[in-house]
């Protein structure tokens, strides 16, 4: 099954970043029986005309790194267990129509939109006087002069016009070509901004009305199970007089959009969207710097994005019977909400609630231990113990692209992501930031008791466990990259289960 994830706007990119982190930890969607969904491929498509948006750039780089790491680990296999388990691919990678030319990127090419001012895009200057007057009623001067390469700056009325072009793009055709029965579509967007609030309903409309488009797989697309994460206001912006995005507008915009969604997407008799995940937080984030221009928003990662990233995974695991009727047509919209177990300013694993803990705890802890191990112990292990088993991990491994991407690029992004969530409001304190002692790394979770105090968890414990596992599974058939992360994953599973207090 392919899950096409359309991440629209800044919030879309940021939620996608959390999804990549969860995927790196090995969090996989599970079906109703608790088994991982088989043969899953996640196809993220970032839709944002604001390409210099820092959040977009960071997410795109993260996706690129994830893809490189995963391909070294598992090649093209969809089935994998452990770190980087979810296969994440670009549209280009899976497309089979050579007639469509696409860049091998996760970002939707909106060149038709992004190089124009909005007034040029709609041909304002060529309109007759009456149409110009009508247009001026719908769009103010700032909006008409808006250069769309910085996005729609909180103006969904611009976005709803501009993004309608998507249906004629090569990317949309490529998507339609590769979409098969059984695949699913998921949208991630905020409801209180411009790009996301506008892009989501337009994309749904174009997919549901695919019969009117000159594309392949129209019927399959029309019946596609569609889910969406709609993020309600959760972040704050610094105050300013001339800001075109103002936090005081967030609630009004949200109400308007919700009414619109109710009329067009999620009403009592609508089956345009089958599963809608609402998420928001009344406790707003720390105020972000307002910078919609050249540098774009660079918002701190936030708990809402982490929770939101679980929505597409949850959606992928929903049984088809909950999304489609017996004839294969989409079922009526169902809404999902999320609540913390404890409404606290500092959210750790215990505040997330038992289901979420079951879903992510072990895996996130393992990723964090890997982060510590790579930073504190691994280099000194080369030439010892398990590294000497076949295939041998030699010092040249430290210079490989895989290792540098994993240990430097990806783990730096992970550290930054954790730090940003920790310093945000609400504070996400899953782990004790800056703590290199593995036994003390998980917030409010201690190591298990032993006869002489508490069990230790350190690099030596990992080395010993990995030595033991490696002895039983040494094989020339594996790649060095796979050997290392697979051993670490299995060792960490045992260590987390046996040496930490059980909070599940």
């Amino acid at each position, binding site marked *: 099954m392919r899950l096409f994830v359309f991440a629209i706007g800044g919030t879309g990119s940021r939620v996608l970043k959390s999804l990549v982190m969860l995927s790196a930890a090995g969090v996989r969607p599970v079906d109703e029986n608790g088994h991982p969904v088989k043969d899953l491929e996640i196809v993220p498509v970032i839709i944002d005309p604001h390409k210099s948006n820092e959040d977009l750039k960071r997410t795109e780089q993260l996706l690129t790194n994830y893809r490189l790491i995963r391909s070294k680990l598992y090649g093209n296999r969809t089935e994998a267990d452990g770190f980087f388990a979810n296969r994440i691919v670009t549209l280009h990678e899976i497309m089979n129509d050579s007639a469509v030319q696409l860049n091998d990127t996760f970002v939707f090419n909106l060149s038709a939109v992004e190089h124009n001012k909005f007034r040029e895009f709609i041909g304002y200057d060529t309109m007759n006087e009456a149409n110009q007057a009508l247009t001026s009623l719908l769009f103010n001067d700032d909006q008409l002069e808006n250069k769309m390469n910085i996005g729609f700056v909180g103006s969904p009325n611009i976005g709803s016009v501009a993004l309608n072009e998507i249906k004629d793009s090569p990317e949309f055709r490529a998507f339609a070509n590769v979409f098969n029965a059984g695949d699913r579509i998921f949208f991630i967007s905020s409801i209180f901004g411009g790009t996301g609030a506008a892009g989501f309903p337009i994309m749904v409309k174009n997919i549901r009305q695919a019969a009117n488009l000159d594309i392949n797989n129209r019927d399959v697309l029309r019946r596609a199970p569609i889910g969406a994460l709609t993020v309600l206001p959760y972040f704050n912006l610094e105050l300013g007089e001339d800001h075109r995005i103002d936090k005081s507008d967030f609630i009004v915009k949200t109400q308007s959009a919700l009414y619109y969604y109710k009329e067009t997407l999620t009403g009592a008799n609508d089956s345009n969207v089958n599963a809608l995940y609402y998420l928001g937080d009344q406790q707003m984030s720390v105020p972000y710097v307002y910078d919609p221009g050249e540098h774009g928003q660079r918002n701190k990662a936030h708990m809402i994005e982490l929770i939101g990233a679980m929505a597409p995974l949850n959606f992928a695991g929903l049984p088809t019977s909950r999304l489609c009727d017996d004839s294969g047509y989409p079922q009526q919209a169902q809404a999902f909400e999320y609540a913390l177990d404890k409404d606290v300013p500092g959210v750790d694993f215990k505040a997330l609630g038992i289901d979420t803990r079951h879903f992510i705890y072990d895996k996130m802890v393992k990723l964090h231990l890997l982060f510590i191990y790579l930073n504190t112990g691994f280099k000194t292990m080369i*030439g010892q*113990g398990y590294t*000497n*088993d076949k295939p041998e991990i030699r010092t040249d491994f430290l210079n490989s692209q895989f290792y540098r991407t994993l240990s430097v690029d990806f783990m730096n992004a992970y550290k930054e992501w954790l730090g940003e969530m920790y310093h945000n409001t609400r504070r996400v304190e899953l782990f004790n930031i800056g703590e290199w002692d593995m036994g003390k790394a998980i917030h409010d979770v201690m190591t298990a008791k032993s006869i002489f105090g508490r069990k230790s968890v350190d690099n030596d414990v990992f080395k*010993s466990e990995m*030595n*033991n596992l490696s*002895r039983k599974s040494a094989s020339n058939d594996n790649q060095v990259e796979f050997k290392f992360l697979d051993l670490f994953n299995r060792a960490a599973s045992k260590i987390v289960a046996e040496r930490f207090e059980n909070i599940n």
Partner: protein
Amino acid sequence: MKHSIFLAIGIAITIAFYALSYSTGANVFEMLYFNQGFNDQLFNLQMYPVMAAIIALMAWGGAAVYYYVINSVKFDRWYHWASVLAVCTLLAPIACYAYIDNKFAHAGLLYIDESIHFVTQILFIEALLFIVASFSIRWWSSNCRHTPFPQ
């Protein structure tokens, strides 16, 4: 399979060593040190097989302790292994000397200089057998199988 062959070879070498300690024609101890009166007494009092057993047991026992009792990532470097080798190599001659001295004392004999020269040779035998034992059994150790050097 390869590891089992190493084990079999190690056992065979040890048995051969033990067998050669019985031998009159090519006695392994007498090949290393020979003093007519002293070695005659060792042979007549049947001390060779006992010393061979002491040496073999200390070599295999020491190796087993290192690879399966110590067996720790904190002691998996070559110098940790070398330390155990050194301890065994020192203890084996001491044990043999104590044994010889005790037997000679009961027999009313005195061969102090010869005994010291003799047990000095045991240093080399013990070191050799410890290495043989190490390469026979290290493969199944979880943490030290790559010590003193990788497989």
